[in-house]
């Protein structure tokens, strides 16, 4: 079995502590920034070296994670995050807000393509030598020369009476005899979010797929400005409804780092219990949905049932089916009492027993496996190049998992098994989910057993000066990165959540070439990117 082998798929990147030396060797002058709090190390670099840093990172097999900006009049701070073998590294460059320019990192990391275009539209920073000049998030709701995340852009926006239709996005056409386009969405037949897919197909064979997202852009980052930390946590819980715990925890972690408070151990363990519960619920739903997309209704119904039971248990134990607003700044809003603990333990046992029957049934059903095997292959090389995260990466030979590789409390000293396969097809993406559920169930038992006693929430001290922090949490889709900047007085000056979907959506495009049209839905479901988490 090539799964669960130790270290399979771990990054070949160097240790985080060797990075300053490597930078010095490469002749990149850096200055460590202590005021960006968190587990990551942060360096200030010259804007002109933005590209060279990326080149050096690429050479050392580091992974590109995120880029975000912040308007601090009259400058824009741009921060990029990279992952080393055991932690994160942040680089910050400062550019002027009038005609600011940065060398693009996309030539070295294709994953940076859309985030940089997003930054360009939101702040008006120009990325030189960016390979793709097209707009990304801005449809027609605001003008080309308006930059919503700048301080001078009103929080209410400048809505037009009627938003003009967005019909001129220049998709990359395919040419040749018999080639045709299939536009799908943004409104879909199922009850799912909005996004547009443009296929270039020949007969039933897909030549290429291009996504056009941004239809559910809500201006979450702008909404966050001026909120207090409690309000921010509530907002973060709604960045993507299915990963409410992941996003809320990451936002709270960033705030807690920023103000420098250590929260009670019990609260951290409860947060981990919440996060694992969320992972289990979503994976259950996804396995069923993947089966439904290939017409295997039996499994869909069974897994929907399990998910429903799990969510009812969530409601009974934590007071909310989707676990919203349980994670609050300073801890959690609900304690686990003895009665609830036994309920949870019983639920874990039941689910474990049911899965022992159901999962092998899926893995061995020939008609289901025939559909899933070799469908939508994302090769390990492509997965690494795109920097995909979570279960998609783990099905394609990249096993990065924050809980194991850069653990935060309470995951330190816990043995986390990370399933990893190399085939990268739909079958493996389903199987990784199945494996992860079982790992999480065991983890839940461990977490419940050493639940420390004590308080579950601690009041945050008043914020007396500007402070900022970066949170890193392994959500169920993968690594979530959140940047929070608090002003003196405790109001949010800037909030940026990086949902894993930013990196996973492009992975879907990569796996579609050569797939036949009727197999696209199951590939899409096996990726299950969040539209809302991406569009913000």
């Amino acid at each position: 079995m090539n799964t669960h082998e130790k270290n399979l798929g771990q990054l070949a990147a160097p240790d985080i502590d060797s990075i300053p030396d490597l930078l010095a060797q490469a002749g990149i002058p850096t200055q460590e920034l202590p005021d960006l709090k968190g587990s990551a190390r942060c360096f200030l670099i010259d804007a002109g070296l933005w590209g060279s840093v990326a080149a050096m990172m690429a050479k050392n097999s580091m992974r590109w994670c995120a880029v975000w900006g912040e308007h601090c009049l009259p400058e824009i701070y741009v921060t990029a995050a990279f992952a080393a073998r055991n932690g994160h590294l942040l680089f910050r460059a400062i550019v002027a807000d009038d005609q600011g320019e940065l060398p693009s990192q996309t030539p070295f990391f294709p994953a940076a393509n859309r985030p940089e275009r997003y930054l360009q539209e939101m702040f008006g920073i120009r990325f030189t030598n960016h390979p793709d000049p097209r707009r990304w998030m801005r449809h027609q709701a605001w003008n080309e020369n308006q930059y919503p995340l700048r301080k001078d852009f009103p929080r209410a926006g400048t809505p037009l009476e009627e938003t003009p239709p967005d019909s001129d996005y220049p998709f990359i056409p395919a040419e040749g005899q018999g080639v045709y386009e299939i536009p799908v969405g943004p409104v879909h037949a199922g009850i799912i979010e909005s996004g547009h897919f443009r296929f270039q197909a020949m007969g039933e064979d897909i030549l290429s797929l291009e996504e056009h997202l941004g239809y559910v852009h809500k201006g979450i980052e702008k909404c966050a400005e001026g909120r207090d930390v409690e309000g921010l946590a509530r907002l973060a819980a709604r960045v993507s409804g299915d990963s409410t715990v992941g996003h809320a925890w990451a936002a709270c972690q960033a705030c807690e780092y920023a103000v420098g408070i250590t929260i009670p151990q019990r609260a951290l363990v409860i947060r981990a219990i919440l996060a694992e519960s969320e992972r289990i619920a979503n994976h259950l739903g996804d396995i069923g949905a993947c089966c439904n997309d290939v017409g295997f209704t039996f499994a869909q119904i069974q897994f929907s049932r399990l998910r429903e039971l799990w969510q009812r248990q969530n409601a009974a134990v934590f007071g909310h089916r989707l676990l919203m607003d349980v994670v609050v700044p300073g801890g959690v809003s609900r304690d686990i009492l003895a009665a609830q603990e036994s309920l949870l333990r019983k639920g874990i046992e039941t689910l474990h027993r049911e899965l022992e029957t159901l999962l092998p049934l899926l893995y061995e059903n020939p008609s289901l496996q025939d559909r899933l095997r070799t469908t939508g292959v994302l090769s390990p090389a492509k997965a690494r190049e795109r920097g995909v995260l979570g279960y998609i990466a783990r099905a394609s030979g990249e096993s990065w998992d924050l809980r194991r590789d850069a653990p935060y409390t309470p995951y330190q000293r816990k043995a986390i098994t990370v399933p990893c396969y190399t085939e990268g097809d739909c079958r493996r993406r389903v199987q990784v989910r199945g494996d992860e559920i079982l790992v999480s169930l065991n983890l839940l038992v461990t977490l419940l057993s050493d639940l420390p006693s004590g308080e579950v929430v601690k009041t945050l001290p008043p914020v007396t000066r500007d402070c900022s922090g970066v949170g890193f949490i392994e959500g169920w889709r993968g690594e979530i990165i959140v940047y929070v900047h608090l002003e003196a007085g405790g109001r949010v000056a800037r909030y940026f959540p990086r949902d894993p979907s930013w990196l996973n959506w492009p992975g879907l495009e990569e796996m579609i070439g050569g797939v036949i049209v009727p197999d696209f839905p199951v590939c899409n479901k096996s990726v299950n990117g969040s539209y809302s988490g991406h569009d913000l």
Partner: protein
Amino acid sequence: MNGWLFAIVQTLCVVFFAPFMAGLVKWMKCKLQNRQGPPPWQPYRNLLKLSRKQVVLADTASFVFRIAPYVVFSVTIVAVSVVPVISVQLPTAALADVIVLVGFLSLARFFLSLAGMDVGTSFGGMGSSREVTISSLAEPALLMAFFTLAMNASSTNVSTVIAHLSQGSLILYPSLIFSSLGLILVAIAETGRIPIDNPATHLELTMIHEAMILEYSGRHLALMEWAAMLKLTLYSLLIVNLIVPLGVALTLRPGDLLLGAVSVSCKLLLLALFLAVVETAQAKMRLFRAPQYLGLAFILSLLGMMSHIILEVR
């Protein structure tokens, strides 16, 4: 009893009970999957609801799009009228033999696929292209199965074939087994069931039959759906009466007719159960597997024909 009157009443009965057959399969499927499920008569409610709704036509729709539901529905009814249900004493069967029956079904399909392409959406065109691909492979297999049965009875008249089979001794002919299997495989493909098509899906990209009727609404959609249910019932009747002709009345005597009605209901019930079990245990096939599946159907039918010629011709 007048044969013609009987034929009309019988056809009307089938038309009326077809939604129940479709609803029954769905209900059984739900029960097998531990679901509550809509009652078997839900399709009637749906048809009623649709017939009351406004018809929304695309600007690009031509007259083909508007007449297609009526053509498809009425041609399917005509096809139903030549299939013996309770009794083989069916004067309409003499008007159209199995070849014409297949022709009727093709005519309906022709209009259905034209309608799919008419509005000019990519989903409709995709559905039509898939439907035609599949039926071009299914039709030869279907005809081959029918020919084997016809050679047995030395007639292509469906009534004669059924009468011949039901009067024959209970010896199992290899040709009958092979062609029955071929017929079942074709029927599953032609009625758009799993593993070829999924009648319950909402995913446009995977649809075949549903993709062609995506643009329909109101009474047009009701007719198209009703026609699809009729087609399911038609194939079911062919299967149960050709493979197990037991109980089909050979006369028009009330006693025989009653027995025929009871036996055909039981057989349909069993077939519905069979369909529900298959659809629960199977995932939908990859689209490009369909030719292999239909190739198998053709080979089975061909084997039936050959075993008839080699083993059974005296």
